[in-house]
């Protein structure tokens, strides 16, 4: 219809015009998100935060501590509210509360017969509840939804700087001491024998977790930072058997999903953090189905091979 109409108006040349028009519209609209400052800041913050989170997720997933990220993420709430009431930086309160959750869990575990996941469930839901009650007692202008789900589009420059510094710190530690951390996770006894302090890393990994969650709080919020701390590592673990590759794959997935999540949210008018997580979950599903399919194929080929070897004398003779 459009083609006919424009052909009526401009005659034969219009087909080229339209092509030109179409392409210019596409390019324009494609780069449209980059023309807003708040979008640029959103891109920056999710890219900055997704790299350390992806790397950390590799370690967390292998350590079997996915729930620890969840616990710390929930437990920061009372810290944030208290920090707000005391007028100190929110990230300090969040970090303190996250560490408090980790330490309390460790203390109860050492002094009871309960399993760690049970204890974490108690500690983090308890702290979360305290946070909620405090939140409603204090007349803050904080938005609970922003804390829970993040506010990527409302990022301020100082938030971006804070997030960037925390990310660089976590990245630097993982870059320099990552091999020690990996050995600690794979074989604590060997780590001990090598002279790597097991105690140091036991708490070190929790501190790194708390720092990353604090850094991610502004961008993706408490709930979705859990996804960023688990899904990239889990995806990578599906497709590789080598730790060095796992880190690269996880980073690639996290960064591309973060970028396209924010990008798509512009057009879909959806919550950016949720879009990021949805994309990552989709990547996981695709990888998982692909792996399932590949394994089935492998089994089928093996069975076929067996049969063809048996039948070879008959089948191959013409």
């Amino acid at each position, binding site marked *: 219809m459009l083609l006919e109409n424009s052909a009526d108006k401009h005659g034969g040349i219009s087909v080229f015009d339209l092509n030109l028009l179409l392409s210019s519209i596409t390019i324009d609209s494609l780069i449209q998100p980059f023309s807003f400052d708040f979008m640029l800041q959103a891109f920056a913050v999710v890219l900055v935060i997704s790299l350390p989170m992806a790397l950390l997720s590799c370690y967390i997933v*292998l350590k079997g501590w996915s729930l620890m990220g969840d616990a710390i993420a929930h437990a920061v709430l009372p810290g944030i509210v208290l920090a707000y009431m005391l007028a100190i930086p929110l990230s300090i309160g969040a970090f303190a509360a996250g560490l408090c959750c980790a330490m309390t869990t460790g203390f109860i575990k*050492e002094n009871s017969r309960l399993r760690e996941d049970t204890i974490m469930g108690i500690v983090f839901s308890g702290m979360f509840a305290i946070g909620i009650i405090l939140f409603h007692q204090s007349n803050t202008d904080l938005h609970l939804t922003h804390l829970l789900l993040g506010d990527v589009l409302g990022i301020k420059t100082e938030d971006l700087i804070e997030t960037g510094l925390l990310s660089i710190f976590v990245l630097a530690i993982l870059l*320099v*001491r990552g*091999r*020690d951390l990996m*050995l600690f996770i*794979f*074989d604590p*006894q*060997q780590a*001990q*024998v*090598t*002279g*790597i302090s097991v105690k140091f890393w036991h708490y070190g990994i929790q501190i790194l977790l708390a720092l990353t969650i604090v850094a991610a709080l502004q961008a993706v919020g408490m709930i979705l930072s859990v996804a960023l701390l688990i899904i990239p590592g889990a995806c990578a*673990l599906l497709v*590789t*058997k*080598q*730790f060095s590759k*796992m880190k690269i794959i996880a980073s690639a997935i996290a960064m591309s999903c973060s970028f396209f999540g924010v990008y798509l949210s512009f057009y879909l008018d959806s919550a950016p953090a949720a879009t990021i997580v949805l994309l990552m979950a989709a990547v996981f599903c695709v990888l998982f189905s692909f792996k399932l399919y590949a394994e089935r194929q492998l089994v089928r080929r093996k069975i076929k091979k067996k049969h063809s070897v048996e039948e070879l004398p008959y089948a191959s003779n013409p």
Partner: protein
Amino acid sequence: MKNRQQSALDNSQNIGISVDNLSVVYKNGHQAIRNISFDIPVGSITALVGINGSGKSTLFKAIMGFVPCYQGSVSLLGLSVKQALKSHQVAYVPQSEDVDWNFPVLVEDVVMMGRFGHMNFLRIPKSADHQAVDLALSRVNMQSFKHRQIGELSGGQRKRVFLARALAQQSQIILLDEPFTGVDVTTEEHIIRLLKDLASEGKVILVSTHNLGSVPEFCDHAILINKELLAYGKTSKVFTTQNLQKAFGGVLRRFVLSAENLHDDVDSRAVTVITDDERPVVLYGEKGSEKLIESQRYQSNTPVSSKNTATIQE
């Protein structure tokens, strides 16, 4: 006691692992081991034998500095445990159950972990480290599996990888936790040969095992423990019926072969088979015409009645 001190004085240079009056108490008040003392000489293979819960792994942990000594002390090559760990003198081969076999590491990655102590703090391997890894892998005959993920290996291969890691570490002291569980006979022989070579190179090797049968074959010393030290010394002196009964009696099932089942004559010699594995099949007779001997199940607390009975403890 006097004897021990005497021999300690004689060759204090040659003592690899020295444990002096060691007790370990866990946080919950459970006393895992008490008053254990022994000296393991350099260039020897020592078996650490005891039932489950006898404190074998606690003793290992104390030697590696994993648990604090409640009382007494451990010294390794004349150094404190901390110093020995710092100078990378202790290598450890873990029990298979302690390893996450789904972990995304390749065989060479695992062996390279043994080199961490030799690297700078960024843990970037140099060519010397790669050479050490290759050498270690070739000593356990696993070079061709270098790029396999560890979960893709058989039980015996898995053990050899971790042994290679201990080799790559080039430590003086090697601790092995149950090295023969889940391992085929060929690998067991291979490991035993390797351990003997290592001992002749002057290493100190301590093997925790419940595989009693193989102990006299390759361990020159043996330690029997059950919370406290039952016996320590040359394997031939430690592995007596009495000592083994002390270590295993009363806890495990026991089967006794009566003398009548063994011979028709008045020969009073007895065959003693002791194992904590499955009930063994025992054959006795002239070569070529051995007959199955049926063993009689005994209640665990029944004492062995006479010297004429061959006992099978299970």
